[in-house]
């Protein structure tokens, strides 16, 4: 065991239990009646609990339904179904698992005219999302020594923690412009191209952002973190396109088998975390005034049209612009590394950038809805006005990162999915095992060796590796298959890792 691993183990939650007896087993989650509507969809009726305003639906096959039913995911989903102004159904995607407030993988839409907006329904990592970059190089051309050097150089150029090591600093008016304009401002500063903006959700710039609603504390906490990954399940992965499912869509995305791509998974870092902290606290204080009662205090919310609701929406959009800019800054750093390492083959094209923790104001039918996606990816079809012009024939790209060392997927949204799930899909494999349980299976060093034995280059701390091991997650192939079979999105390509950089 390495020195660093001894440290990690010594301070793991398990070791810190010290001389206390082990915790008694937790009470089993409540059980609710349910009916299977199709091979990939289960409904919990509105009568399952007295305070539900709408039924709850879970996109899952038999196996995933069993996994999802094991923890408190369904209880949390039913809590969401009680919120004021919710419409249609409260939904959970096939990768859903227990979170705090909303379940992770939760989707809920609230009427903009009389419904709520909830910071807890977006989560602390506002606009956590995924960006896929395509290189012009083939994996076969890269070779292991050059891959090793590429991963190490990327790791140095893209810090996992704070902005230290990153060459970018935005403060004062510059930071205000990042918050207000997102990637548009980065383009003005020479850090994004016009082509980049064309293939980012909302062009990486939400006009409804209000930097004045972002506290000084949030700016202090995250202002210097632009261009960094963060911890937990966030990563930058160098991958190879392993398989294509839809050749026409792959051609439109200019993806081919063997091609090297880069997947970036991160969000708004400390700035977004603090925005959420600030507004959960603020809304907790005003709910009584708005006559809102909740089954869970973390669902703190306010009417979307109220001053508190509008202020949070402005702050959340500003944090989202920061997150889009963060992934753009990482893209810029990755391009520099690719140019240096691979010369003329270094071009990295943005295939797409999409959020999976966000509340968006969207038109669905005759109603404006505030659609909360917490650990769920927006997936608009070919005919939606927000689908980029170059993808009108196929639908908006949907990027699904697998767990570390497993496959990731590129899908495209469908018009049918817009009606079925408010244009939403899963966002990953979804955790199936707690961090403590994952550490009991293998140490970080063992996880690292397992990945390296498969030829995957790893740059990560051992403590994080054990917690994020592939077996701690659901089977991403199964999760994506449910989304595909249910018609929420269509499979285009399967990507497999060559190298991973983590916090």
């Amino acid at each position, binding site marked *: 065991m390495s020195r660093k691993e001894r440290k990690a183990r010594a301070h793991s939650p398990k070791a810190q*239990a010290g*001389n206390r007896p082990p915790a008694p087993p937790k009470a089993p989650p409540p059980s609710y009646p349910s009916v299977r509507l199709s091979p990939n969809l289960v409904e919990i009726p509105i009568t399952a609990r007295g305070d539900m305003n709408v039924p709850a639906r879970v996109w899952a096959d038999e196996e995933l339904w069993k996994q999802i039913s094991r923890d408190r995911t369904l209880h949390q989903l039913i809590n969401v179904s009680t919120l004021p102004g919710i419409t249609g159904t409260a939904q959970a995607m096939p990768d859903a698992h227990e979170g*705090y407030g909303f379940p992770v993988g939760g989707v809920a839409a609230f009427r903009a005219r009389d419904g709520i907006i909830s910071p807890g329904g977006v989560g602390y990592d506002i606009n956590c999302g995924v960006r896929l970059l395509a290189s012009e190089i083939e994996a076969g051309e890269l070779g292991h020594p050059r891959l090793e050097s590429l991963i190490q150089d990327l790791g140095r150029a893209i810090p996992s923690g704070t902005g230290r090591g990153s060459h970018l600093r935005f403060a004062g008016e510059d930071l205000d412009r990042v918050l207000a304009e997102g990637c548009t401002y980065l383009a003005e500063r020479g850090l994004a191209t016009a082509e980049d903006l064309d293939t980012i959700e909302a062009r990486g710039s939400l006009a409804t952002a209000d930097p004045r609603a972002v506290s000084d504390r949030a700016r202090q906490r995250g202002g210097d973190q632009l261009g960094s990954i963060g911890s937990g399940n966030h990563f930058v992965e160098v991958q190879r396109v392993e398989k294509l499912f839809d050749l026409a869509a792959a051609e439109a995305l200019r993806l081919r088998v063997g091609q090297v791509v880069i997947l970036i998974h991160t969000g708004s870092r400390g700035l977004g975390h603090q925005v959420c902290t600030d507004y959960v606290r603020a809304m907790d204080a005003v709910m009584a005034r708005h006559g809102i009662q909740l089954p869970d205090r973390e669902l703190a919310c306010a009417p979307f049209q109220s001053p508190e609701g509008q202020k949070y929406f402005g702050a959340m959009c500003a944090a989202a612009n920061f997150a889009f800019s963060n992934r753009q800054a990482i893209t810029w750093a990755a391009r520099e590394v690719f140019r240096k390492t691979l010369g003329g083959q270094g071009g990295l094209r943005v295939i797409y950038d999409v959020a999976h923790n966000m509340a968006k104001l969207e038109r669905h039918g005759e109603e404006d809805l505030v659609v909360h996606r917490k650990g769920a990816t927006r997936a608009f079809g070919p005919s939606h006005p927000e689908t980029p012009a170059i993808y009108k024939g196929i639908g908006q790209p949907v990027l699904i990162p697998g767990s570390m060392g497993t496959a990731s997927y590129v899908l495209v949204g469908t018009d049918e999915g817009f009606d079925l799930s408010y244009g939403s899909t899963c966002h990953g494999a979804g955790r199936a095992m707690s961090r403590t349980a994952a550490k009991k299976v293998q140490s970080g060093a063992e996880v690292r060796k397992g990945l390296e034995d498969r030829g995957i280059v790893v740059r990560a701390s051992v403590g994080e590796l054990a917690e994020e091991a592939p077996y701690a997650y659901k089977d991403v192939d199964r999760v994506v298959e449910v989304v595909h079979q249910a018609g929420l999105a269509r499979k285009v390509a399967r990507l497999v890792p060559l190298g991973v950089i983590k916090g």
Partner: protein
Amino acid sequence: MRKRRHRWLDHTSEVQLQVEAESLAGLAAEAGRALGLLLLRDEVHDVPARPEGPAREIQVESVDREALLVDWLNEILFLAEVERWVAVEFDILEISSTHLEARALGVPVEESPALVKAATFHGLAVEERAGGLQAEVIFDV
């Protein structure tokens, strides 16, 4: 070895803390130390019981006892990320259900600990138990 009165419960995706103490002051101090040790897990092997260096004053005002615990932990988190200084030992100078004033000793770190995003209200409970109080808090990680 100092006796710890906290433990970590299983949660699918987050980190759940359970802490016991004879008083609200003890509960705040123990929960704060648990968070500090969690933040330092990759940085410092032997966290001293009373770190050297200047103490810092921390003050929190909240609407009730549960919110006070969440706000207190989020303040420790904020200091760790912004000041690169992780508080691990606390003298609680004043405490009520809505007000907390403490003197904290801590450990400087080279990089801001990025592990924990926030202390949440989900599943939060501060309950009277025989011989004192017990609280559970879930951290978003």
